[in-house]
């Protein structure tokens, strides 16, 4: 479908498919991180505290944590591709210069790269969903929609990561990325309900895109359809759009001098 809607963007996506046919191991490794968190925190800590209140009932801690880990898996997949890989291509590989000498434009290039980084997020999320199903951590058939829901997470983090990457000057700047990502992962209602935060702090956390993504995925996994999910989607879409527009503008500045 995308291939016929945006053939030039899709050709950029295809280029990455070619490359990763040989590097699938790199993709596989990204799947294990959330799995380890699930085993260590979900079952380890969960074994100590047992259940946690969610939506007015007590649920197993592992079942509460798993959807958040699924959301962060999608985030990681998208953001690692749109930061490290794109930085490499921008800075060292001259491949973008070659691509832009063809009918492909900067907009096509950005969409193609975002489709790719998103695919990675969707793969991680789907694999993780299978693990959840096997471990009996899924509470509702609506959970089967999570691979679709994570597309919103993938695009927002992919686009934001891409936009930030266009400003990076060296690998050192990536330290800042981790300063953002680690707390984002830890504090975005991943391991405990967002209601735990006092007053203003809570509203800051609510605005974290990962909090929104986690809320979206967790609601599906527990079969708890609510209106706030539309807010999640709108918020993540807005970040995607702003990130994409900025990335395209910066690609123009950097590559079309």
């Amino acid at each position: 479908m995308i291939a016929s809607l945006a053939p030039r963007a899709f050709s950029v996506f295809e280029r990455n498919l070619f490359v990763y046919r040989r590097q699938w191991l790199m993709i596989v490794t990204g799947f294990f991180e959330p799995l380890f968190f699930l085993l260590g925190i979900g079952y380890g800590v969960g074994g100590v505290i047992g259940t946690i209140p969610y939506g007015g009932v007590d649920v197993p801690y592992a079942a509460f944590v798993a959807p958040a880990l699924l959301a962060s898996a999608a985030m990681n997949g998208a953001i690692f591709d749109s930061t490290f890989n794109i930085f490499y291509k921008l800075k060292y590989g001259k491949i973008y210069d070659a691509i832009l000498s063809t009918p492909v434009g900067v907009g096509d290039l950005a969409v193609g790269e975002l489709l790719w980084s998103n695919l990675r997020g969707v793969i991680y999320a789907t694999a993780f969903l299978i693990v959840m199903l096997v471990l009996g951590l899924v509470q509702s058939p609506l959970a089967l929609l999570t691979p679709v829901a994570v597309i919103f997470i993938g695009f927002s983090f992919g686009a934001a990561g891409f936009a930030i990457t266009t400003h990076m000057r060296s690998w050192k700047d990536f330290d800042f990325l981790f300063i953002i990502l680690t707390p984002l992962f830890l504090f975005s209602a991943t391991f405990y309900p967002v209601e735990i935060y006092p007053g203003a702090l809570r509203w800051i956390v609510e605005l974290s895109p990962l909090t929104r993504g986690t809320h979206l995925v967790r609601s599906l996994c527990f079969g708890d359809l609510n209106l706030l999910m539309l807010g999640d989607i709108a918020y993540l879409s807005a970040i995607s759009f702003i990130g994409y527009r900025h990335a395209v503008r910066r690609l123009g500045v950097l590559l079309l001098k």
Partner: protein
Amino acid sequence: MGMTNSAPEPAALIRARGLTKVFGERTAVASIDFEVRDGEFFGFLGPNGAGKTTTMRMIAGVSPRTSGTLEIFGQDPDLHGSEIRGRIGVVHQQETLDMELSVRENLLVFGRFFGMDRAAIATRADELLELFQLSDRAKDQVEPLSGGMKRRLSIARSLIASPRILMLDEPTTGLDPQARHLLWDALQRLKRGGTTIVLTTHYMDEAEQLCDRLVVMDQAKIVAEGSPRQLIAEHASREVLELRFPNGTESIDVKVLEGIGDRYERLAERVIIGCENGEAAHARALEHGLDPESWLVRRSSLEDVFLRLTGRTLDE
């Protein structure tokens, strides 16, 4: 520029008028005019920093011009960049091959950027690999290829969609003489096949060998235009006498130099004298009491044209 021949000329594929590019304070291209005609081998000759690459980038629609008009296939690259790029093949000065793909995959992926269907790409890719003698390396990674092979692959890749115009930026820089000649042959074959070729070079012999017509660029401007033969006839004498003075040329009297040939250029360790007859000029130089360490007589080349026009050699 003054193209007022009465003979009918082939249509211009590229037409620039007052083409200008300014980067901040620096003017990279200062109001140049030129036309590239259908089927022509056209060159931009000039030293590094003369504005050749910037001009190529503007033609390829990846560098918006500051002012002037530019038409490729009669279209403005600022408005129809994608369409124009679909009919142009570009070979960059720096290697831009995809190091994460194999030789053949480089071609396959590139074809997709041009929107070709997979079957057509595969056929064309094998054809090009054959043509550029890369078939036996098709499955190899790009990185270990020799410089000459990488350059041939870059050209093969740029031809995947059978472009009407092929643009090459300094295509033989860094290649050994044998690889250079292989490349020249390949380019001449392409031209015979009807491809219009535009190249930049700072090698005189390359321009002389390949170009039907060329413009000489220096400091963002076009300083001369014509066929290599025309340029030599207009701006250089028939022969050149080169005298070498390892201890420097400053002490040589101007009057002496003026008396030897039609014109002269004084370089740090060489005096270059344009004349009708090099042997006779050498005899006159000795009569005037000059005592060069060595000397040689040769036919005039574009190098002398450039020296004449700018007072500098190209490799300075």
